């Protein structure tokens, strides 16, 4: 695993997230569930806790955008770059952007599984860089995994716990 050089980690354990808009590929309930589960992947192994808010600015702002969306990192249409997220800092930090030119799906292995893409991006939102371990969730390229049996690979567990410690409830 790898973490961002510098002190890129949240100084608090209670974080907020907000879903700013939705992809037309999935129902609202499916997007909500995918995002919630993707954050829970990280909460399960750390003291981090996530609360959804519906107005104002959250620590992690989530949006579906296309092309140049004015953050200096334009998307490139279908395939290629699927999403990106910023490491923890004030403002844009923590925010996750999904390329809405992709087809995001809920359970099907076709298209791109939103839960898997989001779980990876939230790793960045929390301070993890890309891992060189091909089995890690934080490996840069997209690989479909069975979402019903998904468990966070050990490399990612080690990475996130190096930043925030273990889940005190376990």
């Amino acid at each position, binding site marked *: 695993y790898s973490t961002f050089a510098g002190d890129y980690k949240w100084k608090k354990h209670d974080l907020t997230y907000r879903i700013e808009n939705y992809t037309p590929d999935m129902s609202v309930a499916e997007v909500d569930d995918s995002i919630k589960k993707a954050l829970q992947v990280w909460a399960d192994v750390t003291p981090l806790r996530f609360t959804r808010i519906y107005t104002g600015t959250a620590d992690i702002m989530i949006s579906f955008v296309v092309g140049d969306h004015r953050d200096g*990192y334009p998307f490139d249409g279908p395939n290629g*770059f*699927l*999403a990106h997220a910023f490491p923890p800092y004030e403002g844009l930090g923590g925010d996750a952007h999904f390329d809405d030119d992709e087809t995001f799906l809920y359970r099907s292995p076709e298209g791109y599984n939103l839960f898997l*893409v989001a779980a990876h991006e939230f790793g960045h939102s929390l301070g993890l*860089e*890309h891992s060189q371990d091909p089995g890690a969730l934080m490996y840069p*390229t*997209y690989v479909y995994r069975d979402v019903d049996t998904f468990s966070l690979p050990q490399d990612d567990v080690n990475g996130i716990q190096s930043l925030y410690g273990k889940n005190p409830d376990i």
Partner: protein
Amino acid sequence: SPIAPPADEDRENIAENYLNRLYGLPKQTSSDTERRSSAMSLRLKEMQQFFGLKVTGKLNDETVEVMKKPRCGVPDIAA
């Protein structure tokens, strides 16, 4: 009908865009091709090393295949 660009040019473009976006390859601003080629080779080596490919600094099929895979847009190596 339109003439397809040569495959090599295609690969070069893919590599340039990829390395520019993810490995800090500066955008081409001068006609100094030797300097450009050296900068690209260096970034290619970094990329090949990151993905556990054979580190040659040269564009080969294996490297281009990795570049074509769908992926996250966050750079692999911190600027």
